[in-house]
């Protein structure tokens, strides 16, 4: 059965509408959302309400968490003072706009969703704030999937869609009894089956080189993954950004396919509360 996975909507209603229309056109009725419904974009309530209306199972993103809990991520999750100030501004604006009902919805989102051996998270199984980049150390990537007891891990957060297969994973363990006396040793090798990390990219704030929204379609039977790009009315969102009083630079970045949420340089950093 084919199912669609969407992520990082970032309050971009036009992009979400276009992606859902594309999914509907494929005849797919199982959709999972990996969070970050809000933040930076101009239509937080509209986006949350559309997700609720379509009853799309959703896990909590870092923005969904922060907008409820307050800005509790440590400063170093921002790559620069400029990004931090803009992020705080977007945070404050979004917090002011969101209805109490929609805040409750975000507050009650689960950290992860599981369907058999498929695991759905925003950042990584460890944290909504951790980036699983495509070039991450293979052992560390395998560890994230294996310890979460998943065959396929769906994530977002990087805004850059990719499919990574982790093959030939093996762990060799040698146990020696009585090291000083040269006791018997036992060696064991554990071979791990293929694991996959599938990043869904971003609906509302693409960071893959153009302005199209991205999401993925995964077929559980065949194992195929399709990264889909969907054009949408970018100008509609850009106008709404400016009209809403959010910084115009957000519209400029979106219009040019540049990210407005700059990624921290230390991608493996996990905030300590």
């Amino acid at each position, binding site marked *: 059965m084919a199912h669609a996975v969407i992520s990082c909507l970032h309050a971009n209603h036009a992009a979400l509408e276009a992606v859902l229309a594309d999914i509907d056109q494929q005849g797919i009725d199982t959709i999972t959302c990996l969070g970050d419904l809000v933040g930076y974009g101009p239509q937080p309530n509209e986006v949350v309400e559309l997700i609720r209306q379509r009853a799309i199972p959703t896990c909590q993103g870092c923005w969904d968490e922060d907008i409820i809990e307050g800005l509790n991520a440590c400063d170093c999750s921002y790559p620069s003072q400029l990004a931090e100030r*803009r992020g705080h501004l977007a945070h404050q604006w979004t917090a002011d706009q969101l209805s109490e009902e929609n805040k409750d919805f975000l507050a009650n989102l689960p950290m992860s969703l599981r369907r058999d051996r498929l695991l759905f998270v925003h950042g990584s199984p460890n944290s909504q704030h951790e980036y699983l980049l495509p070039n991450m150390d293979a052992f560390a990537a395998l560890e994230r999937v294996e310890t979460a007891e998943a065959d396929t891990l769906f994530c977002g957060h990087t805004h850059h869609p990719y499919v990574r297969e982790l093959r030939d994973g093996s762990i060799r363990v040698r146990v020696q009894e009585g090291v000083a006396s040269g006791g018997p040793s036992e060696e064991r090798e554990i071979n791990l089956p293929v694991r996959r990390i599938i990043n869904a990219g971003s609906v509302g704030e693409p960071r893959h080189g153009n302005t199209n929204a991205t999401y993925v379609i995964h077929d559980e039977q065949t194992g195929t993954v399709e990264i889909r790009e969907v054009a949408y009315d970018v100008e509609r969102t850009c106008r709404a950004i400016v009209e809403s009083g959010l910084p115009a630079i957000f519209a400029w970045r979106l219009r040019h396919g540049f990210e407005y949420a700059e990624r921290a340089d230390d991608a493996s950093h996990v905030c300590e509360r």
Partner: protein
Amino acid sequence: MSQTLLISGPPGCGKTSWILKRVQAHRGPCGYLRLAGYPDEGLAQAPDGGIDLAYLQDQCPRLLDLADLDQALAPRPEHLLALIELPQFQPPTESGLGGVDRRVIPQLEALHLKPDEHLHFGRDTALPRQDTLDFSSLQAWERNLAGSVWDPASLSSFWFELVNGAYGDVYRAKALMNLPDGRAFFCNWMVSQEGSQFLPLQALAPPDGRPERLSRLVVQGKGLDPAAIEVTLADCLLSQALPHSFPSA
């Protein structure tokens, strides 16, 4: 034998870079003067504010400032190479010294300077051929950044946005910017050339306290949005109280 050269050309054609090479190649004393130039129809000259002189003096500490009246009145050292930079949009109507803009002559005379040769970028083959643009309209904007210190990662983001059109169509941008570790960079960008130059100054400022050296941003272009630039600058500059407090990302 001393020599006085007047080098003119449009913004970003490479006048200062060419002058730096001449100064570095000359074995004797060198002097430098930057004239402000004149606006042309719809074309504003960018007030340099001393950026070029500060950069050249950093690279060549013994470079004489020919705008200094005391220098002008003092006897010239032997074998002085005097280089005069003149921003000028349109090519001179006559070749050689006959093409010197007459409006600058009184300024030069006041400083006891008389060019032996006039070279204009795009006209004289003694200068490198540069891919310069013909400007039809040009605004200029500048900001004094004296005492300011940049968060380095924010400077990188700001410069990217600036030269990619986030604050209007920028054709030319140059600046001297201070970093918290005491270094400063000469940042230079021209629409017709690929990439930006980020050239570190040789002189370091003391790591404690605010740097007192010249720091300035000059932008030329069309439809510039100074208010938006100011908002971003405020978010990029480190606070007065905590110049070293922002963690390096």
